[in-house]
């Protein structure tokens, strides 16, 4: 009895970081770990597709455009999701679509974090006119309906050249999503920074003569980074949905498979009884969305003790 009682007390004495504690809690959540595994599978698939394209590997997933059968062939053992109008394997298109969706979600998340986190931190730390300007910008942006805003950005950005690089297809999608979806994280970080900027460790840093950027980026941001991680995981699924919507509306990837484009194609094919393309894309989105949602919730519970639901 004594041994088991003393071990936790020793650990408590050593102290556990927020991250170690979070990971420990997360590992106890079996469903979350299963979801994490699913997410890793999707990410690996996207990564593998990238590598296969770069190194020109002879694997089926990158040969999505190959004609494997007749036009609109029903699902068979050989082609579990049948074929599309051009006789392309719907399964291969679905697998390839993971690359498109994950690229968009990843890039859009990074763009939105790159804008939202520093803006929120600076606004929260300095306050005054800087804070007012940032709050005014994000309040204005958030007053515009989200999908309309993304659509407007996508239409404006499409086929434009920026720094010598032409913005087309997939890049239009993640830029449009990234540039319009930083408001949420900006607001969260601003609030956290306002709350923490009077903390002892900040006062200590100030008294040591640290500059404002050093305080923000070396002391404050690392302490609120768990919020960024949670937000990242929860918004990731939203970005995948946004990609699907934009592709569905014809503003996404035009000539490569994406789940949104597949659903768009399948929409008119349903009337001729071709249901398999819609089904395949929906299943792919369903599992990834579900996994991301459950894992995101678990991550939030583990990293943010105040928001714990378990």
């Amino acid at each position, binding site marked *: 009895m004594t041994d088991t009682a003393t071990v936790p007390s020793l650990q408590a004495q050593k102290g556990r970081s927020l991250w170690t504690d979070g990971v420990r809690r997360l590992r106890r959540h079996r469903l979350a770990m299963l979801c994490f595994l699913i997410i890793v599978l999707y990410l690996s698939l996207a990564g593998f597709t990238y590598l296969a394209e770069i190194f020109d590997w002879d694997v089926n997933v990158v040969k999505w455009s190959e004609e494997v059968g007749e036009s609109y062939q029903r699902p068979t053992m050989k082609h579990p999701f049948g074929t599309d109008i051009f006789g392309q394997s719907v399964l291969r298109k679905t697998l390839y679509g993971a690359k498109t969706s994950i690229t968009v979600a990843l890039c859009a998340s990074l763009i939105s974090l790159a804008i939202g986190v520093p803006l929120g931190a600076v606004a929260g730390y300095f306050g005054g006119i800087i804070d007012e300007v940032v709050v005014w910008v994000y309040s204005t942006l958030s007053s515009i309906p989200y999908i309309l805003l993304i659509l407007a950005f996508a239409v404006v950005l499409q086929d434009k050249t920026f720094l010598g690089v032409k913005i087309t297809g997939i890049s239009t999608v993640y830029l449009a999503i990234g540039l319009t979806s930083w408001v949420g994280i900006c607001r969260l970080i601003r609030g956290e920074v306002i709350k923490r900027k009077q903390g002892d460790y900040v006062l200590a840093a100030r008294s040591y003569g640290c500059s404002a950027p050093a305080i923000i980026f070396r002391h404050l941001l690392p302490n609120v980074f768990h919020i960024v991680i949670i937000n990242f995981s929860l918004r990731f699924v939203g970005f995948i949905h946004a990609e699907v919507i934009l592709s569905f509306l014809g503003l996404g990837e*035009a000539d490569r498979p994406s789940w949104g484009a597949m659903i768009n*194609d399948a929409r008119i094919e349903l009337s001729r009884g071709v249901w398999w393309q819609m089904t395949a894309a929906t299943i792919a989105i369903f599992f990834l969305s579900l996994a991301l949602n459950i894992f995101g919730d678990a991550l939030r519970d583990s990293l943010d003790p105040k928001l714990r639901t378990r």
Partner: protein
Amino acid sequence: MINRYGSIALLLFVLVIITGCGKSPSETDKNEMVLRHIMPTKVRGLDPGDMRDRYSFTIGSQIFETLYQYHFLKRPYEIVPLLAEEMPLVSDDLLTYTIKIQKGIFYQDDECFAGGKGREVQADDFVYSLKRIANIKYLSQNWSLFDDKIVGLDEFREYTKGCESEQGIDYSRAVEGLQTPDDYTLVIRLKKPWPQMVSTALADLSTAPVAREAVDFYGKDIISNPVGTGPFMLEQWRRGSYFELVRNPNFRGEAYPLEGEPGDAERGYLDDAGRIMPFADKIIWTVILESQPAWFLFLEGKVDSSGIPKDNFGEAITQNMQLTESMHQRNIHLKTFLDPSTFWVGFNMLDSVLGKNKALRLAISRSIAREKFIELFSNNRDMVAHGMVVPLMDSYNPDIRDEGYSKYAPQEAKELLKEAEKVHGGKLPVLKLAVPGTDTFARQYGQFLVRQMTNIGLEVEAQYMDWPTYLEKMNGRSLQMFTSGAHASITDAQDFLQSFYSRNWAPGANNFNYSNPEFDRLYEKAVVMLDGPERRRLYRKMEKIALDDCPAAFLNHRVAYVLHHDWYKNYKPHAFAYGLSKYRRIDLEKRQAYKDLLKKLK
């Protein structure tokens, strides 16, 4: 006292009431005869002087009228007077046309006229309309039709080059070949005979009279404020979504034809013979870019007629190409006819990669499996286009299919591609294929062509754009490759061949910006000849020259399958005319009965 929340609630309630009041666009009087159509694309504008696409023509032809028109019922197709009193009096040397214009033709009432009342059309209006097209500042797509044809008109065009702005142009400046001895007589003097002038130009919407007052009053907005003499006038145009035309009260009335071709009476096309047109009170076009919603609206009886989307073909047509039982149950009728249209992948001959590389153009042409294309995109309805001239024309060369211009030969295409790379001096760059439309059909269309070309080793990127953007780029000669087509408005193959004449470069009909001196020489020779075997021989020779140079990979000639409801009367397919809404009549009782039928079927 009403508190703050009460005030907000009251305000919201008033807003809801205000916005909820008034007729919705689709809501009409039960007894009103309304023609309901689908417009599958956005329309650029409704100014006849600068209209060239079939969608603008479809609406514009109900508002504007020309001197001549096609007889609605007679076959072979026949030109008859519309605004003219009679067919023109042509001089022996075929150079002078004297045209008597009907009296009592009035423009629709519009605020551009004094007192808002439409004035009578006079011969000067036709002269003004032609001078307007000649005005280089106006940049009309229709100039190529009149280039080097009418005495003094080219000089007028030269004069406009020197004017600083459109406002500074003196339209009273005389043009020798356009005379008006009196208000109802128009005399056109030609530089050289132009036997097809009546059908090509005087029955073409571009020559419809436009009131100078309207152009001056609306300025650039004239494209959305059409002021015509036709049976209908524009009531409402919500850009990109909705057109509503209503009867023009100033329309003089026109009698429905008394005769047609044999069998027309039996088919009911002469039931309204002699009755004054138009029959309909209103025409509505709803812009629906997607074929599926349009199809469902047709089945619901919200639209009078419809084409058949490729994905619904099996629902409407059996394997024997007859109507299915479900269509029969709905009393839907099928009309099929060979549409005088040709579709192609065009090459911009000014492009530095494609223009000088015939082997590359041939390789692309050989890479496309037309039969597969027709199977996938038109359910085997269409015909392979071996050249530009459609089979229903006299000058169609029946041997052209054996000459193999549209042969699918992937191996040969690969050999040609190697040759093309030698001509280019290295690896070919990524080619750009412009496709008008951003919907699923357009994407699949583009993807199919890209796949065919990439199969032989080319790198091609499809670029999807809306119709106005596509036209703008096309007219600016900035497209490299483009999917396009032409629909003949006359029975003469000249309508297709003019697309290869070098004086008609974009924004004219020659979107390929193709030039061949021998072709031009023959074209200039043929266009002044009367119809006959010699001219047909020249036409075939010209077609062969153009095919040898390969400025386009021809794909298909469309065979139209059109469905219409039982209540939609006088629907006789016409391959060339657009202003046909005045002939249409709705059997209101049958339209009403369809609602009950739908309930039963459900």
